């Protein structure tokens, strides 16, 4: 495999597309942490729930668009139920309790999904009207579906930015992030705010899961593989910062995708090809963690530390 410009461009776009998925996950996780001071390991479960619900709704209605559109509010409802039943009592607890309790939730959700849909991976396909390619540049086709994900991600990022900076809800979210006690004292129903933010995060995770369905396999435990990468994203970006989530997601998405595509051929030019065959994939799967270690070495707070006062 030789490295051509077209290939580099295509893989860069793939990296961007993966970065968008990571961002959708990271935004919810970082908001929940920034405002409720909650580490939610079960965020990956919401991604999984979104993917399964979208698959089920698509099969039921026969329309992918309708399936995704139904999966979003459904995941939101699941998220709100989880918040009200289990997580609400955890806000005042320390992070260790939160980690363990949400770990318990993951076991529950993975098993619940396995009971309903089985343990085997479900493969779905991109709907026919999105399955084609379009010509990005002369001689460079790019899958329409992946391009659509990038567009949706950008739109969601803009909407989220507008929500946080230009609406009353956003103002409360920002106020909640900087001083929880004060906003409560000012008469804002903080419990409702928490539930809303959690539901919003759940819907974003559900959106990521629903869109991931046709690209990756849908199976129990799918949420945790991406969740750990999302952790890397928000640690790199700075915990609690939306801006950090965007930058971190794109950096991690790119590093992961480009590493998988190009580390092997690049190593092959330096060391013997059989050795590169072995070292390439190993290094590629480790690359984002090494990147994270490097960022932390220089900026322990991440790239965009959120100014927290509490």
């Amino acid at each position, binding site marked *: 495999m030789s490295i051509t410009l077209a290939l580099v461009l295509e893989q860069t776009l793939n990296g961007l597309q993966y970065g968008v998925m990571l961002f959708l996950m990271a935004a919810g996780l970082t908001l929940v*942490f920034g405002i409720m001071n909650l*580490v939610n390991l079960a965020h990956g479960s919401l991604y999984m729930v979104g993917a399964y619900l979208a698959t089920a709704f698509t099969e039921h209605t026969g329309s992918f668009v309708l399936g995704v559109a139904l999966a979003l509010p459904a995941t939101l409802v699941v998220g709100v139920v989880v918040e009200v039943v*289990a997580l609400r*009592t*955890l806000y005042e*607890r320390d*992070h*260790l*309790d939160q*980690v*363990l*309790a949400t*770990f*318990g*939730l*993951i*076991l*529950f*959700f*993975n*098993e*619940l999904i*396995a*009971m309903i849909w089985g343990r085997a991976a479900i493969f779905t396909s991109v709907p026919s009207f999105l399955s084609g390619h379009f010509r990005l540049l002369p001689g460079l086709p790019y899958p329409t579906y992946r391009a659509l994900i990038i567009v949706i991600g950008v739109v969601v990022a803009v909407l989220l930015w507008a929500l946080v900076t230009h609406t009353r809800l956003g103002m409360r979210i920002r106020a909640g992030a900087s001083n929880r006690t004060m906003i409560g004292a000012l008469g804002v129903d903080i419990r409702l705010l928490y539930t809303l933010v959690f539901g919003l995060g759940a819907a974003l995770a559900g959106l990521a899961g629903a869109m991931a369905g046709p690209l990756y396999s849908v199976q129990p435990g799918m949420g*945790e593989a991406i969740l*750990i990468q999302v*952790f*890397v994203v*928000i*640690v790199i970006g700075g*915990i609690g910062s939306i801006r950090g989530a965007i930058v971190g997601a794109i950096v991690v998405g790119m590093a992961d995708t480009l590493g998988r595509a190009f580390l092997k051929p690049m190593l092959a030019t330096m060391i013997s090809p059989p050795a590169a065959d*072995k070292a390439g*994939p*190993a290094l590629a*799967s*480790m690359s984002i*963690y*090494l990147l*994270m*270690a490097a960022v*932390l*070495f220089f900026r*322990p*707070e*991440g790239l965009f530390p959120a100014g927290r006062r509490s």
Partner: protein
Amino acid sequence: MALSRRTIAVAAGCVALALVPPIAALTNQPFYLDLFRRMMIFAIAAVSLDLILGYGGMVSFGHAAYLGIGAYAVGIPAFHGIENGWLQWSLAIGASALAALVIGAISLRTSGVSFIMITLAFAQMLYYLGISLETYGGDNGMRLAGRSRFGGLVDLREPTVFYYVVLAILVLFLALGNRLVASRFGMAVRAAKSNEARARAIGFSPLRYKLTAFVIAGSGGGLAGALLANQTEYLTPDFMHWTRSGEIMFMVILGGMGTLFGPVIGAVALLLLEDVLSALTAHWQIILGPILVLVVLFAKRGLFGLLVGEGSDG
């Protein structure tokens, strides 16, 4: 000196564990020998995690990484025909200590949630490294060529001998841990947990102490990994899976963190619970998950606290 409830509970626990092989032999249930040996191996891992989690306040979510390193430090030499246990186990301890030194040096620059996520991410990185080791079975793992050999001294192929070796290591490790937390070093680590700024003001650098504790805990995990490889006679990257880290952490909480002996009870209780639940239904995790949530919400003192009427002293 009057015996405290703590001393009595610990002594009773040791006697009970020592009696497992004769009872298993009498009732002709060799399965229990296997189960309890497995419990004690995880107890070693859980106690080592308690050293940093309970006493140092370091919420490491990647403790299974050392388990994996220890297991591979036995499996890889065995694969190449080196079955000397002294060598394998020293390698397990050394390699996991080195890994803990590197991971700790980077992770301890942060604290709180970042620390949790980073330790998890490093463990995940090692998990992927394990998967990419295709010579050693990659994703599927590999059979252990043979249990570690210690000349004519002890023969681990003998189930009862192996059992008492594990028990001896557990007791030694507990004794060591007990001395460690009461020592000046242990006090420094606990001081760093309760108030890092004050610890600095008194005039010692918490980071060095925390890192040393982190390395000790890592090597304890590595030793448990070496034992686990001998126990299962099989090793896979799954030893390092993040759910394994979660389980070890849960053992510590279930037993009572910051108590050293609590995690032993936690390991026994969790593995027993898993054993009972998995006999009931294939979907036992759907029961275990909510139990975990309930324990965290309502039983923070842990089983050891209930047993001897003391909570975490951290």
